[in-house]
């Protein structure tokens, strides 16, 4: 089982979420984060003073998938989150040791 953490543009979240649901992936948790990669920051101006806001609001999606679904889901995320401009975000994949569904006690792939 694999954990996928995707940091994507805020305005892309709705289409990514929809694409994931269409692909059969309904469980996820979402948080709002600030971050930067190579994107230069956004400019904000107040009373003549201009600031480069280094930390840009992004949306962080976390989901856990079975190994056999990993590549397919990664493709779904990349395709729906992509714009081609700097700031599209990154995806991180890591191993998951155990997954448990609290309600039923199921473990492993069945709980994903």
């Amino acid at each position: 089982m694999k954990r996928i953490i995707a940091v994507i543009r805020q305005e892309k979240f709705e289409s990514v979420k929809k694409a994931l649901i269409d692909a059969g992936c309904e469980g996820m948790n979402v948080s709002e984060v600030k971050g930067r990669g190579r994107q230069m920051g956004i400019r904000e101006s107040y009373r003549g003073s201009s600031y480069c806001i280094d930390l840009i609001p992004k949306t962080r999606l976390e989901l856990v998938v079975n190994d056999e679904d990993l590549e397919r889901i990664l493709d779904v995320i990349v395709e729906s989150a992509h714009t081609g401009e700097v700031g599209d975000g990154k995806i991180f994949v890591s191993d998951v040791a155990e997954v448990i569904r609290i309600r039923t006690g199921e473990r492993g792939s069945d709980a994903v």
Partner: protein
Amino acid sequence: MVMLSTGDTAWVLIASLLVLLMSIPGVAFFYSGLTKRKNVLNTMFLTFIAFSIASVIWVAYGYPFAFGDVSINGLISQPAHFFMTGIGINDLTGSIPTILFIVFQLTFAGLTAALVSGAIVGRMKTSAWMIFIIAWVSLVYIPIAHWVWGGGWLMQMGALDFAGGTVVHINSGVTALALALVLGKRKNPSLLPHNLGYSVLGAGLLWFGWMGFNGGSALAANGLAASAILVSNVAAATALITWVLIDTVKVGKPTMLGAITGGVAGLVAITPAAGFVDVPAAIIIGFVTAFVSYYAIYYLKSKFGYDDALDVFGVHGLSGVWGAIATGIFASPAINGAAGLLFGNPNQLTIQIISIIVTAVYAFVVSIILAKILDKTIGIRVDEKEEIGGLDANLHNESGYRL
């Protein structure tokens, strides 16, 4: 000889400030709470800039063309006193200073312009909004104000509009619809208020300020002003309760958004009637108007597919129509001399309907023309990237929250 009444003047001075409060910051908060977070500042900006533009136009040539001493065929005034030159500090209009009457009316012009912004949030270019407001105040608001209040033909015909059912609410509602149609739908037309608390705050300021809007229209510190305030509160409260009950039946639970929308709808509907009807009539007016605007928002909008984002047409336009009709039905001579259908004067209802149709058609047609001209010349809609990224960041380089 009419003399200055310090009581009347004090009240209308305060009432003017109350109407100012409705726009600044009442409407700004009411609307911005309902929009997406990324557009909160732009939504407030639309109100502030519209009010400001209307204010300057009003003193430059607005008041002269709307409320001059002589009406040219009932269509527009023979203007004088551009930029208020020649109006004396001690000149009187009735028992209050002329300057005060100008101030009071200025706040009405500003509010009407600000109200229109609710339909177009999230997708209109700032330059287009500003130019539209300049043209619209000049070509729509000023003539209608003249026709209904400034001695123009609707007033001569006997149309009753105590505080602005036609001039403010039908006018802004229909204009909003026209603009929304030319602008087109937002990419994401969902109504997910980012800060409903702001809207509650805004609605509270509106309710509070409305007491000056309706009460001040008596232009005197007297029983009529008190009666206007009394019936306004009753209509608002009745409409709020009714809306809450409709919500409970239709969607299962009462909602805060429904409550404040109901309250505002009640205030809109009572506006033309406030100085003409009694308490029982006000209760009926409030009760019925909840159904009128509820239907407009929940059914009409989805049926016809127009993106009147914050329901300016549904609330201000249509509750304004009902209020103007109701004035023709319930006007009681005991309150302010005018008689409606229920008091043996069916003609009043006919006159009201004419004034509604004239105002609505004129405002709609001219607004569509102005919007289309603007769209063909400078374009009125922002581009897709700006719309999706948010207007605060793209049009203002600001953000409303720093979390």
